[in-house]
């Protein structure tokens, strides 16, 4: 496969996952705005959305103040925001357009139709009351595209690159979300068990669309930080956990190695990351320091990506 083809497939999936993550963040913020008396938490929430997406400075340089409507527009439609949903969808389509012969007609159609329906929205003025519908449109379409990929693509190397793009983005994004809010997960005597805590934790779960899943996994017991850390980092069944993403990345990198008949004995970085995660407990993470753990994790994943890029995308 052409190196650029592999790269375009990877980034198609990565941008789609990013668009999906951004609207999930918006969904959480939207929920908060519906709850009375959360003035303070509410402002914090908007700030942390910007921080999680890594675009707080970009935003402030343009709009100067934290304001709900403006942030929504900035995240959904603003051309000046390189990670706006609009730009993510455009980039995803541009990438897939360059390799449209490497995906099935169904996959291309799904991405292309998504692009057109989202662009219809950009032609109209944005009103904040439209937010729930837009969130729904994006989530529905991204899920449709992913399903189409799984249902129609040949499981060849191109498939692996698509899936890798998805999980590299998710690993990175989940780690950032936890990191931005790590302070609410730390045991502190003054706040433990208070309403605020519970509320914040449930929001965190919602922001990775795992609130319901958490209940399934842990029953109806009280939410606490140990369970949340376990769920979002170490749980092998939670599709949003770091563990899950790393397992997928490791599996698909291995498939590529087999596909290209590479030397199997050559140890890879992702194996080390995965092995480490398997052995960890929540207490180990807390001992290391949650923030330190996440920083190392994000760095590790980015090294794994650099290796992948060097090996498959630069191709010389």
């Amino acid at each position: 496969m052409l190196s650029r083809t592999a790269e375009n497939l990877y980034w198609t999936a990565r941008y789609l996952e990013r668009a999906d993550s951004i609207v999930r963040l918006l969904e959480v913020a939207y929920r908060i705005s519906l709850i009375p008396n959360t003035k303070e938490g509410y402002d914090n929430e908007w700030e942390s959305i910007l921080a999680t997406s890594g675009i707080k400075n970009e935003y402030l340089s343009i709009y100067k103040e934290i304001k709900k409507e403006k942030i929504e527009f900035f995240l959904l439609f603003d051309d000046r925001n390189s990670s706006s949903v609009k730009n993510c969808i455009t980039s995803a389509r541009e990438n897939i357009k360059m390799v449209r012969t490497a995906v099935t007609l169904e996959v291309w159609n799904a991405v292309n139709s998504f692009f057109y329906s989202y662009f219809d929205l950009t032609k109209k003025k944005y009103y904040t009351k439209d937010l729930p519908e837009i969130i729904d449109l994006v989530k529905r379409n991204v899920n449709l595209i992913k399903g189409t990929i799984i249902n129609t693509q040949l499981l060849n190397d191109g498939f692996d690159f698509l899936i890798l793009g998805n999980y590299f983005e998710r690993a990175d994004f989940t780690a950032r979300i936890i990191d931005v809010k790590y302070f609410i997960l730390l045991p502190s005597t003054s706040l433990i068990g208070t309403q605020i805590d519970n509320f914040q934790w449930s929001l965190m779960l919602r922001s990775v669309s795992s609130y319901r899943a958490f209940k399934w996994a842990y029953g109806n017991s009280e939410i606490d930080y140990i369970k949340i850390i376990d769920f979002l980092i170490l749980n092998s069944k939670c599709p949003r956990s770091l563990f899950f993403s790393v397992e997928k990345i490791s599996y698909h990198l291995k498939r590529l190695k087999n596909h290209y008949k590479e030397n199997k004995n050559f140890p890879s970085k992702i194996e080390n990351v995965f092995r480490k995660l398997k052995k960890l407990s929540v207490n180990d993470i807390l001992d290391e320091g949650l923030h330190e753990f996440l920083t190392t994790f994000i760095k590790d994943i980015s090294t794994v990506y650099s290796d992948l890029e060097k090996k498959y995308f630069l191709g010389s």
Partner: protein
Amino acid sequence: MFNEVINKSTVRSPYNKVFNWAEALPKNTILKKQIQAENLFKKIGVTFSVYNNYDVSERLIPFDLFPRILSASEWIKIERGIKQRSIAINAFLNDVYHRAEIIKAKIIPEKLIYNNPAYDIKMVGFNVPKNIYSPIIGTDIIRTNEIDFKVLEDNCRTPSGVSYMIENREIMMRMFPELFQSLNIEAVDSYPSYLVDILKSLAPKKCKGDPKIVILTPGHLNSAYYEHSFLADLMGVELVQGSDLFVNNNITYMKTTEGPKKIDIIYRRIDDEYLDPLYYKNDSLLGVPGVITSYKTGYVNICSAPGAGLADDKAVYTFMPDIIKFYLGEEPVLKNIKTWRCYDVKECKYVINNLEKLVVKEVHGSGGYGMLIGSKASKKELNIFKNKINKDPENFIAQPILELSTVPIFDKSSLSDRHVDLRPFSLIGHKKFKLVSGALTRVALKKNSLIVNSSQGGGVKDTWVLAD
């Protein structure tokens, strides 16, 4: 003006069935089918980019559902004419870049060749594989009456539109399967495999084994990008950009996930001057540094050859009948359109004095730009062009205002005549000539307009060649 469907108040025989069918179609069916067809095109992504459009810079080429039809005998003549022209064009290019006998014989003026911007001096003396410079030619043909098909233009560089020929057919077959059951219509879907076959016959000297073909595109922003990816897909070859290729030790490679892979034939869809920054434009990133050296040392073939555009220049066009006679000793099967060359003082005078009756074209212009239709121009425009011609006569030719034939379109669900042209795509390789029985019909959607170019409001039609 020749009406291809109704002549002397009777329906011409190739259109018999279709005309009755079209007349009988209920209005709302037509509208419904038009919307369906448009959605299909949009879904497949058949679009072309428009450079001066800020928004989503992609548009659909309007597609009209009423087919253009040619009988078997009409097609045989067109095919003979195109084949003759393709052979002559390649013989001409080979001669011009070697002994230049045609200049020595004083058939074509020397300066028309050597001062021509499309003439590539670096190609002189180089033997291109199998002496084929331009394997893919799109010939623009117009019909003037019952008998005459005339050539308006030869496109020898990177003619586009063949994807529309194939997609238009796909759409028509989906929309109106009943027509294909009742009429005997020649298929067009073998074009991609013909193209592979033709290109493989042009493998470079140092190629061993089955030649590896790639299509070289300027990228997804190019107006014909859809076509590039469409062809790559149907031909089963890689679609590459300049940055996907590199040259090492004169060998051209593409970068793959499994390391470098050697390639043998580049079907390039980028212009000469972007091919290799070491040879041509050195500020361009579209090309491949060193690929011309790889080409000249026989490791890779570039189709069409650099400098092949010389043969489709509008000034050289006027000599095409002489070129055919000179190399083949035959009379041209397809006639040229009467053309005045402004570099000739006498002809130029005629042009200036009769401007309102003529179409004036820039010699190197294309896409319907840089063109004046005398009858439709204002006094001011006529004067501007007079000055332009006087200043630089060599840059202009003039032709009579053509009576392009008409075929109806569905205009808001009723039939209305519009002007059309015809572009078949011929393929010439080593001792091989291939032409699918079909073509692209371009149609001017504005009533009475003669400009069929898609960039200026033209649309397309499916083109049927009936089997005997």
